[in-house]
């Protein structure tokens, strides 16, 4: 175990904790009270979802417009289990729902990813295929109202409760702290993984795939692994989202939510982990600040964000901060390998 790697992981964790604490300070900005705190919890959970996109796109170099399919499956797994929609509510329903919300996307990602990556569907083709899949999944979900609730969705999804630990996350403060702690832990875990040999290879995917292949790495296998990991994270975020928002609908599987996550990552800064969280908080915060008009103009706003980021600041907000202060340096992985 290298101490540099440990140090890098801890410092990233501290930076994440700092970011979560800053987010907590936004409480009065979003109207205070439990509902304000619930808003902030949503930002953090969407940040976790954005992390899954950063993992796939920022590090793995695969831009997907279908990531919300995994997020949505996580949402529905939790909602279906905890509302007793198809079977009686089991004990520890929340935990089971979250676990299924991780497992089901992983299984689908293994099957789908196997065909796509061993079938050499790469680059822009991958993006197009995921776009097509996103449409397919949302129309399939609508044809199965018994499970997905049709156009109305599933209301009254209960908040998370872990009976064996005697913990309930019904209170908005508890839910917020849970989300913040999970954010810190997951960012640290990802940092730890990405600083490993496997992580270095994954970073190689977005740098030069061909060279990686020549060096003897199995590109298809690497891609599959990162795809499955990111599906698991997206599904987990989905489960948390359902528990926090109390309502799920088939929109959550669709293209708009996928797009939103890509915006979060692009705005926050690709390939930085922290940028994904920051992007979710800033973009969602801005949409809140736009207030009543935001709903009407939200999509317009996202479109403009895409273009501004691409044309003017490709490295995102975090890149801007890094350039200004050099403080939040994501740290080149090469430093750590020794």
């Amino acid at each position: 175990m290298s101490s540099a790697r440990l140090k890098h992981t801890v410092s990233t964790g501290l930076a994440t904790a700092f970011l979560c604490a800053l987010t907590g300070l936004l409480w009065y900005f979003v109207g205070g009270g439990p509902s304000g705190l619930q808003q902030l919890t949503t930002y953090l959970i969407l940040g976790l979802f954005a992390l899954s996109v950063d993992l796939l796109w920022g590090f793995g170099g695969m831009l997907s417009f279908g990531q919300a399919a995994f997020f949505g499956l996580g949402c529905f797994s939790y909602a279906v289990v905890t509302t007793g929609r198809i079977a009686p509510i089991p004990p520890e329903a929340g935990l089971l729902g979250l676990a299924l919300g991780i497992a089901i996307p992983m299984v689908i990602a293994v099957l789908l990813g196997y065909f796509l990556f061993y079938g050499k569907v790469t680059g822009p083709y991958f993006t197009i295929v995921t776009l097509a899949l996103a449409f397919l999944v949302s129309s399939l979900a609508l044809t199965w109202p018994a499970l997905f609730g049709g156009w109305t969705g599933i209301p009254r999804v209960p908040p998370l409760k872990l009976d064996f630990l005697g913990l309930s996350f019904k209170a908005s403060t508890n839910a917020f702290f849970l989300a913040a702690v999970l954010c810190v832990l997951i960012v640290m875990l990802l940092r730890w993984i990405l600083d490993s040999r496997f992580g270095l290879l994954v970073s190689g995917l977005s740098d030069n795939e061909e060279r990686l292949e020549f060096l003897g790495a199995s590109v298809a296998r690497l891609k599959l692994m990162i795809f499955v990991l990111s599906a698991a994270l997206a599904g987990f975020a989905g489960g948390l989202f359902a528990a926090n928002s109390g309502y799920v609908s088939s929109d959550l599987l669709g293209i708009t939510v996928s797009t939103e996550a890509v915006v979060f990552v692009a705005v926050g800064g690709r390939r930085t982990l922290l940028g994904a969280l920051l992007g979710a908080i800033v973009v969602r915060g801005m949409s809140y600040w736009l207030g009543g008009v935001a709903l009407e103009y939200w999509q317009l706003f996202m479109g403009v964000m895409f273009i501004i980021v691409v044309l003017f600041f490709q490295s995102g907000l975090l890149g801007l901060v890094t350039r200004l202060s050099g403080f939040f340096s994501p740290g080149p992985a090469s430093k750590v390998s020794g």
Partner: protein
Amino acid sequence: MDQIILLQVLNTALIIGILVLVSLGLGIIYGLMDVLNLAHGEFLMLGAYAVVAANLMGLGLIAGIALAIVGVGLLGFLVERGLISRLYGRPIDALLATWGLSLILQQAVRLTFGPAPKPVVAPIEGAVSVIGMPFPIYKLVVLGVTIVVTGAVLYLFRYPTFGIKARAVLQDREMAQCVGIAASPIYSLSFTIGAALSGLAGALLAPLVTVQPYMGPVFLVRGFITVIVGGVGTLFGVVGGANVIGVTEGVVSYFASSVGAQVVVLAIAIVIIRLRPRGIFVRK
């Protein structure tokens, strides 16, 4: 039974015609400039709304079609000059930027015309009898127009100087530039033509489908699958790809369902990417 099958064939031919118009533009833009234009579906949607706008002004379909070709073509020109030309050599960024553009166009149309579908009446009433079954004249006219336009585009990219230069750039950009072909005006004009074709497809489709702000992406996806299947960098391949996709969609949705057709078409696309990454109609 024969008549039903014949009607099915005619309807499928119509779908293929529209797919060709949409995919030609996509294929040209992707083949020439390496840009996956994710706003291409919105160009089609704007073409359909051009007809809606013409109707609101008391003008007929012909004026609507003219408006669609000129208006969407002009928009395409501006988009290429203002946005795409800054992003050559950065395919993923171009993809993101055009996705942003598509979101903006959808919302702009939604704010202008409202979210509800707009009815457009078929301008040519009446039907002809196809061995005893009525078939709308308008669909036959559309079929004719798509065939003529496709022929014209294939000619344009084959024989005139512009077409020869464009194909030179398409085959080998660096070599073409070395022998003194300026790529920039070719990009600009090709993007404009591609956009105008998509606008035309939308205008022709307007009386046949529900016109609403979010109609674009479905055609975008089908168009891309057509290009992938047919082969990037060949216009005849695109026509072939449209036939494969159109017939598959027609047959599967006739015997099963339209969702089933989507699944099958996507599966075909993936298999073809695997087995013939450069398309069915490209010689290896």
